[in-house]
């Protein structure tokens, strides 16, 4: 078969590719929102190009800023979505099948959006690509991320095209599942392996990343289901999602409770400051906890079993909660300064590291959502995802 036929078989392009959208209410909102956000993103990029790293509010004591949180958000979202989709393929979960294709692609695109943020967070992206390959360091979690992401992306893409072509994609799905979970656990272990940080080090963050990532994936599935599935084919899937939500959200709640209690028990230095700064702030109990976990949980338990509407709204709140969770985790590891003495006569002694993102950081981080939305639009228009 000629190359053109291979592509036709495996890459499920639509027969007619037109970039003209249907002009109804939701679509218009979507388009306007994504254009605005892309504009915001470009503003941030221009700011970065003009001032370099000085456009950010990161400092010696707080080197990871909002861009790292935003990037982690997209990564968690994408890996979670991909993991669920790959499981659906591998374990033959019929209920989720209708949106598996979308989920795989949208997961990939979320990762792209994450890279759009990461590109401006890392100081030297070209050097990174060259030297992670040439002199990569196996004890570094970031190195393994550099291994797992490409593998996940590769196998996700392979799963997608084999699945779309109707072929047996189970092997690829299994590999996708393995590598997606590895990626997300590795991302969590960036924090978990920080031995000098009593709050961060340990198993909590890798597992929390995995669970909240999968929860995020569930939320994205719910949003896809609401806006992209026009028929009833996903009715069972909704139930499935809700049950999954209940399990994972409950697990997360228990984990948070134990993490919180062990941090305040005994007023341990290094932990108690984090609790006081992060856990008592609205960003945690309102956004991460209430929006991110409790509202979806409540809606999953008591919402109408077959209706997706409320659950979709809860999912949107859930995604906001996921973003807040990412901000919280990056803050938590940097809240306590490592050096507690004054180094200058005329200064206050270091207490809690204060940080608020600069306008450029907000722009790039939030604007990347616009990139994601634009990529979704392109994917919808060019690929056959039903």
């Amino acid at each position, binding site marked *: 078969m000629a190359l053109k036929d291979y592509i036709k078989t495996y890459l499920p392009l639509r027969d007619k590719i037109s970039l003209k959208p249907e002009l109804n209410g939701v679509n218009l909102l979507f388009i306007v929102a994504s254009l605005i956000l892309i504009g915001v993103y470009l503003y941030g990029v221009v700011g970065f190009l003009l001032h370099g790293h000085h456009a950010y509010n990161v400092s010696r004591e707080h080197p990871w800023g909002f861009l790292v949180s935003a990037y982690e958000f997209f990564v968690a979202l994408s890996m979670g979505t991909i993991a669920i989709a790959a499981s659906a393929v591998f374990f033959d979960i019929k209920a989720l099948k209708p949106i598996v294709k979308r989920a795989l692609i949208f997961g990939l695109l979320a990762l792209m959006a994450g890279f759009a943020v990461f590109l401006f967070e890392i100081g030297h992206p070209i050097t990174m690509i060259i030297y992670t390959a040439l002199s990569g360091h196996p004890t570094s979690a970031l190195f393994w991320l550099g291994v797992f992401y490409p593998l996940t992306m590769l196998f996700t893409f392979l799963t997608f095209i084999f699945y779309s072509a109707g072929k047996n994609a189970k092997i690829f799905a299994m590999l996708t599942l393995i590598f997606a979970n590895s990626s997300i656990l590795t991302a969590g272990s960036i924090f978990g392996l920080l031995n000098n940080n009593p709050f961060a080090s340990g198993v909590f963050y890798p597992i929390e990343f995995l669970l909240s990532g999968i929860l995020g994936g569930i939320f994205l599935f719910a949003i896809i289901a609401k806006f992209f599935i026009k028929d009833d084919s996903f009715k069972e899937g909704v139930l499935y999602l809700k049950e999954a939500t209940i399990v994972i959200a409950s697990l997360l709640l228990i984990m948070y409770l134990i993490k919180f209690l062990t941090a305040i028990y005994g007023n341990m230095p290094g932990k108690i400051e984090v609790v006081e700064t992060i856990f008592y702030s609205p960003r945690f109990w309102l956004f991460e906890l209430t929006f991110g976990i409790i509202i979806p949980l409540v809606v999953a338990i008591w919402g109408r079993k077959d209706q997706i509407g409320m659950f979709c709204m809860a999912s949107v709140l859930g995604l906001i909660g996921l973003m807040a969770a990412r901000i919280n985790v990056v803050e938590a590891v940097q809240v306590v300064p490592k050096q507690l003495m004054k180094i*200058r*006569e*005329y200064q*206050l002694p270091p207490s809690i590291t204060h940080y608020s993102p600069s306008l450029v950081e907000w722009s790039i981080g939030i604007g990347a959502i616009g990139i994601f939305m634009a990529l979704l639009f392109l994917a919808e228009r060019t690929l056959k995802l039903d």
Partner: protein
Amino acid sequence: MEVEVSRRKFLRGSVKMTILGGVAASTTETILASHSNSEHKPTASNIPSSITTKTGTGKAKEVPTLCEICVNKCAAIARIEDGIVTKLDPNPLFPKSKNMLCARGNAGIQQLYDPDRLKYPLIRVGKRGEGKFKRVTWEEAYDAILNGTKDFKGLKQILDEEKNNRSTVGYCAGEGMAEHTFQNWMKCKFGSLNFVNHGTICLTTTIGGYTLTIGSYGAVDFENAKYVIMGGANRAEAIVTPDTMDIFKRTKGRGAKLVCIDPRFTHTAAKADLWIPIKVGTDLAFVLALTYVALTEELYNKDFVAKYVNGFEEYKNHIISNKYTPEWAEKITGVKADTIRKVARDFMKAAPQAIYYQGRRSTFSQQDFQLRRAQAIFSALGGGIDTKGGIIFGKKLPLGKHGTNIPVYSTTKDRVDYDKAAIVGSTGTWLGFRDAVLEGKPYPVRSMFIYKHNPMLNLPNIDKTRKMFEKFDLVVAIDIMPGDTVMMSDVVLPECTYLEREDPVKSYGGTMPSIALRQKVIDPIYPETKPVYNIIKGLAEKISKPMWEIAKKYDPVIQKDIEGMTPEQEEEYYRKNGHDLTDWLKAESQEEVNEHMVVSKWGKEAWEILREKGVFYPNMDKYFKKINDNEYQYYPEDKKFYTTKNGKFPTPSGKIEFVLPNMATKGLDPMPTWRDELYVKVPKGKFKFITGRHAQFTQNNTQNNPVLLDIIPENYLWINSRVAKEKGIKFGDLVEVSSEVGKVRIKAYPTEKIGPENLFFVHGFGAHSEALTLAYNNGAADNEIIKDVIEPYFGAAAMHTTIVDVRKV
């Protein structure tokens, strides 16, 4: 403090004052070095392209020199790569500085490359203080000094109007190796007697106190002292070599006990074994009470007192009859009577290896002279004078002299401040001098020559100083930076920095005496700057004959002498009697003079060693040994000069004087006496202001140094936390401190390291000169609010007597 911004200004290197008709300010290339590495790129004018330069690993030129940022003259070795000074390293050979270089010593490089430096002579064209100058050549500058311009008068006119009273030209200088060059020429050749220097705004009372008591200010042997009382001397932040290095290696249970008496918890207090907070200005009561304990409990060294002291009985009676008991002192000083007893007992137990430290920047109150006397007396009671572990006189290696042929002008009047204090020596009393200038009595001082001195910022009551400057007809400043005083000048003569010049070789005494040399490490980077030797030489050449003409016109003795002489005979008279103002400066450069001074006493080989290594002392090759990277032996223990007077002290009588009967004739106390009327009490709700040092700044010399300002960008007001809380003042809040002479605005630093009755901020900030990019309006100047109070013995400025108030703005 935007050091980043100023770094770019640094690279552009523009001088901030308006220079009319002048060439573009500096020859620095405008290299935007923000993204290049830190290795220096030699530019057309050999100025580095970044503020700090990384040293290279290649071959470099290494030249020994002596630092000049403060008074200590630590020996340094300059590393020069590609014509740029990249680092100043300590020179291990100098026994006084003991192989160290403090923060300021390292930052000397930035003084050399400061883009705000004076680069060529200037003369004023606007109003005085406006900052409008015109760039001129040296010849034009000298001409302006001699003949004046339309904006100011010249020497010729002034001396003509004052009928050759040479003292109408006042002159002042700051401490420096070349201070003597300037001072000696102005006094002995030019002939003015109105000289003031930093003495009476610094250490005159303590020098006077110790000299009149034990014969000399002396030094200390901190390597062997067991008990040291430091009253206010903040050696951890006001570094004096080798005292600082010696004592702080031995406190905290490692051989010496340091008692720090200071109203503020300074770094010295942090390193001391006992910190005694005391009410400001009450130190004298403390020492008198210590003396009382030592005398009544008979703890003093009876042997020493019997052999070497005059007036012991009289002093003992004085102390006891005045009832200077610890309880009495407790009420005045706030120090517990038991503490006073303990200190006195511990001191005497450790004596003779016990020292009541002389201190340096003194004159805390009007009773300061008596305080220093009482300190010296108390030290002497322990017997620790001229002995190991005590106050030592040491030995000083001689150098050849450079004689001066001094002309005599009978028209020269006595100094104007002669009656402003009891003992007015050759360095006068600055505040008294200022008052006399303002009064215009007994005669007007029409001109002022300033060398390396910044009266606009270093004298209490800046407002008054400004008024004094407005009275002069001719102000000439020799300086390296366009500071506040330069801005008030008429003729500005730029000196090159210490790294670009050779200064008079100097001999440093003590237990391990040596001779040290400052030689230039690179040629002046601005070719129109010169060492003061050459500046004075040029001036002398210009004004010698015109001054002689004026002398002939008015001086009756000279007129009588040369009556009937032929021109040749007159020329001979002119030369023989020292009227040739250039004869003292016949050598082409300081190097020639130095060579003569060293070779005449120590021989040619010594001179060569001195030039090659920067330091010389006899048997250096045998005695100097490296013990390890941190320790060197300069003299073997048995060769150190601990006891050099052998029982005959440098006083006129040969004995230590507890009583000074001459004082009584001037209406002053012959023995240290507590005078309650001279003590300034702090009114309720107000504060007494004190000033002091941080180890990163030397007065105003460092005010524009970016590397040092990197550490402390501006000064802050120390205010007690509880007082600050009451007034609603938090860290960093802008507050206004006001006294009866002025007010300043400064940021607040609430701390418990200072008591509720006091306020402090460090000296060396608050410049008003716009030409200093980093120093302009940076922080607050303490002398803006310090009241000018003249202490009666030497006319020194009592700087800790000002009552201030503070409020949030």
